[in-house]
């Protein structure tokens, strides 16, 4: 009984042996060709990609420098403004009408 079961299980495992491969529908190749043309898949050569990468890094660098300058400028402005505020205040405080 157990031997019979073992045989059956093994036969199940081997059931795809010597089977033919299933084929897709014949029109599939033309569908694939259509899709390739539709999507206009084109190869981007590595040299082009390299130029793009260099340009992107350059833009990023310029933007980073601009940001650093902007932040520094903002800080300076703030310092100047607070100094002027204190200066003006003291002037007003020391102003006396005779």
């Amino acid at each position, binding site marked *: 009984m157990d031997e019979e079961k073992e045989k059956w299980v093994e036969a199940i*495992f081997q059931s795809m*042996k010597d089977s033919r*491969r299933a084929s897709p529908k014949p029109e599939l*190749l033309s569908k694939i060709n259509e899709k390739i043309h539709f999507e206009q898949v084109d190869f981007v050569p590595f040299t082009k990609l390299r130029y793009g990468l260099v340009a992107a890094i350059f833009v990023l660098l310029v933007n980073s420098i601009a940001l650093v300058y902007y932040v520094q400028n903002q800080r300076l402005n703030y310092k100047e403004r607070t100094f002027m505020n204190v200066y003006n205040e003291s002037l007003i405080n020391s102003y006396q009408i005779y």
Partner: protein
Amino acid sequence: MKSEVEIIEAIIDGDEKALATLYTLYSEKIYNTALSYTKIGEDAEEITQDVFLKIFKNVLKFKRESSLNTWIYRITVNTSLNYLKKKNRFKIFNNRLINSQSIDFHHPGVLLENKEKAAILYQVIDCLSKNQKTAFILSYIEGLPRQEVADIMETSLKAVESLLQRAKRKMKSELEKIYPDRRKS
């Protein structure tokens, strides 16, 4: 007959005939593998289309470290697994439909005397994990040598053998549950 390298170079040059040659050589392998995962002809065709598009788009990335056959099988396995993952997201909504389709799957290329047994095999294959299923499909359905299966899965030969052992053990226990029913009928 063009060599692998010649076919690849011709595809890079945009030669449509080369793509047709590649299709003749690989479409059945791709379709058959995808069919083992999905068990639905239309889905397997969609995967086959996707695989050829990926080949066409990524042909420049093919490093020739592995054979073209290994590379294409790897794309097929990954595309099939991703397809199933996407499909399973909607499983809650159409659970019934998927189950009924998978139980009744009959592989069109199977020998007549093995038809019933192969249907049972496809029924229990779903109990396997992703990696076990891949190892089993490539070894037992595609009939690839273990080393090539290891190359496709980017793992060691030992790992593939262990995956197959575990897969067979799991499937065997599932089959033993079905066996008494079969005896009654």
